[in-house]
């Protein structure tokens, strides 16, 4: 029967579906490397991961782990205000980033620093941002870890959860109108997927035919709320078909699987002008942020088990199996990463802070007269009373 809402068959049977009536088997989780780090023989690998890319991915994962460890400690020492690690989710960030081009436009949440690192943001750029100094590309406006780079097509982070999802759809629609061979990529957690903006983005992406790859990091915890309290039904990927959208669940701890899942999702999105949803199953091994102590709400044993499944070690074993990596290289890479990160923090901490003028610029494309007047008043005041302006704040 052709209803305005769709063509559907009739049935004399009164049967509810879903919920407790006909629980469906969960969508399986695609993987290509097993927990011990060995290749799964029969796995689909439509996008072959070559040596150069694989080694670069691993080196970036090592760097990311080192940044997270040392930046976290630096925050605990009070050197800057806030930090969030991506421990346990390195393979999701790096595996997906490696499948994208820098023409693809990234809208991430706040735990995908690995993506911008892989795209070319340096450790020094990260350190400048966390210290909010004058070398920081964002001029000291954003709180730590809210990285962004126009040159790398990586939008600055929006703290308000899930707002980036509709943005990604709008940008994808613009890419489609421009006939660009690129997509937009939106990252978010399973907690953010409970926001209204998630629904708005999914439904609009599907109805507009927007080439977006949605990558959900289902890491099990939204601060202290476990995923089991976040939703009923089959996770986030399970919602894809309801929106008329292709969906895939992937092992977020398997970098090669995430690479393949993202590369294939990207191909479908661009070739078919449709959105694709990827749910990467993983675990937040660290605390939510430096404002959180997760040992208060989750079991030590759970955390220990997941840390033993470290996705970086898993990928390292696969690389060694390929003959592309060895222990000596590993030691050298970790030592070099440590040296680079410590040096970057020292350089960033010593650099001057942004000038007072950076407070007023960029509120509008051109400074309107009312802000120009307020800025002039501030400049006149600190010029007349130099002692009123802290010595570490340059005026202009």
């Amino acid at each position, binding site marked *: 029967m052709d209803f305005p809402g769709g063509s559907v068959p009739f049935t004399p049977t009164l049967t509810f579906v879903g919920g407790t009536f006909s629980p469906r088997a969960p969508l399986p989780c695609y993987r290509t490397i097993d927990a011990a780090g060995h290749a799964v023989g029969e796995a689909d690998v439509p996008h072959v991961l070559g040596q150069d890319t694989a080694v670069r991915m691993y080196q970036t994962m090592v760097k990311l782990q080192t940044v997270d460890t040392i930046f976290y400690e630096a925050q605990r020492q009070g050197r800057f205000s806030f930090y969030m690690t991506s421990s346990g989710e390195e393979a999701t960030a790096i595996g997906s980033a490696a499948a994208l081009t820098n023409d693809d*436009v990234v*809208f991430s949440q706040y735990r995908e620093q690995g993506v911008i690192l892989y795209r070319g943001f340096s450790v020094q750029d990260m350190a400048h941002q966390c210290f909010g100094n004058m070398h920081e*590309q*964002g*001029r000291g*406006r*954003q709180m730590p870890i*809210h990285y*962004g*780079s*126009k040159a790398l097509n990586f*939008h*600055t982070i*929006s703290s*308000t959860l899930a*707002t980036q*999802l*509709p*943005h*990604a*759809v*709008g*940008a*994808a*629609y*613009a*890419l489609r*109108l*421009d006939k660009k061979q690129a997509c*937009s990529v939106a990252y978010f957690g399973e907690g953010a997927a409970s926001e*209204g*903006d998630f*629904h*708005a*983005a999914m*439904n*609009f992406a599907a*109805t*507009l035919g927007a080439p977006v790859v949605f990558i959900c990091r289902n890491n099990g915890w939204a601060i202290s709320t476990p995923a089991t309290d976040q939703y009923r039904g089959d996770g986030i990927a399970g919602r894809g078909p309801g929106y008329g959208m292709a969906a895939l669940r992937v092992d977020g701890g398997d970098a090669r699987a995430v690479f393949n899942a993202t590369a294939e999702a990207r191909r479908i999105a661009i070739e078919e002008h449709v959105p694709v949803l990827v749910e990467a199953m993983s675990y937040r091994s660290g605390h939510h942020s430096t404002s959180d102590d997760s040992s208060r709400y989750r079991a030590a044993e759970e955390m220990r088990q997941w840390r033993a499944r470290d996705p970086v070690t898993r990928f390292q074993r696969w690389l060694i199996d390929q003959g592309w990596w060895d222990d000596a290289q590993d030691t050298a890479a970790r030592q070099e990463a440590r040296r680079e990160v410590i040096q970057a923090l020292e350089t960033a901490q010593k650099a001057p802070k942004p000038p007072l003028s950076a407070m007023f*610029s*960029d*509120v*509008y*494309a*051109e400074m*309107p*007269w*009312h802000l120009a007047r307020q800025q002039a008043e501030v400049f006149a005041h600190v010029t007349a009373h130099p002692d009123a302006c802290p010595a570490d704040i340059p005026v202009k």
Partner: protein
Amino acid sequence: MQRLGCGAAALLRRSQGDGAAAALVPQLVRSYATTQMTIRDALNSAMDEEMARDETVFIMGEEVAEYQGAYKITRGLLQKYGPKRVKDTPITEAGFTGIGVGAAFQGLRPIVEFMTFNFSMQAIDQIVNSAAKHHYMSSGAVTCPIVFRGANGAAAGVAAQHSQCFAAWYSSVPGLKVLAPYDSEDARGLLKAAIRDPDPVVFLENEILYGEPFPVDEAVLDKDFVVPIGKAKIMRSGSDITLVGFGKMVGYNLKAAELLEQEGISAEVLNLRSLKPIDRDAIAASVRKTHRVLSVEEGWPQSGVGSEIISIAIEECFDDLDAPPERVTGAEVPMPYAQNLEAAALPTVEHVVAAVKRMMGK
């Protein structure tokens, strides 16, 4: 002392009925005016011309395409520009607002129509936290050239959730520009300026005025006619008091000025046009000339636009004032439905006249 409006007695004297709006259109047709144009046609022609001028301009919202807008402001645009540039969307304000913001980040110039600004509340996070701040947070690397437009303020007979003014809300936000047209010249010139502007613009229209014709001269009909953002307009020159308003209240103030003239009071009528940036210099210059200022708005009194007008008058020209500044506002209650109560909750020309006479000591 009650300075909000004119008190209960005046409220109860307010004339009732739907004819009020039409009667308030000023009869001051300028001699050089050659054409009458409704606000609807002014807005429609402005969008039409800007879409023809710049192919990155597109419109999205509920009912904007096939239905041609709940108030027919987008009439004929789907037929002219096709479904890729005039998009009907699912009913999710946070969705089409966020998608518009993302498209603006990527270089398009979206016009997002809210059926009314009441519904923009479901998307205000996208306007305040994303559109307004992204340029600053990206250190100027990413602009957000987008227009949010639709009917704002009191409509007629549609009660609490469809009749309120959001001018004060949006005009407090750094990063946003906020415009409120009164007549067809404003509607055309300000909307065209908004579409061409590199920053996000909140464009507050008035449902009751959509069908109202206003005289426009030939210059206004030029396809490159724009009204500068941030500048107020003196609609009528006077020497005894300055009446400051925006949108529909400018018409009330013009009518009040006519009535006051018959009593020997010369009122200057200032049309703000732009609520952010607000034309501080024009307000101050007028108050220095007249020595009195009365703000008139339909919105609520606390933290309203009138609060800002009075602050400006006091900060800029306190010593020039011959009377305490006052404001006429809507009653500080959700809008009632019953016709008598709705009428009692809104400012009237009589309120304006009474407030002016009190301030003049007459």
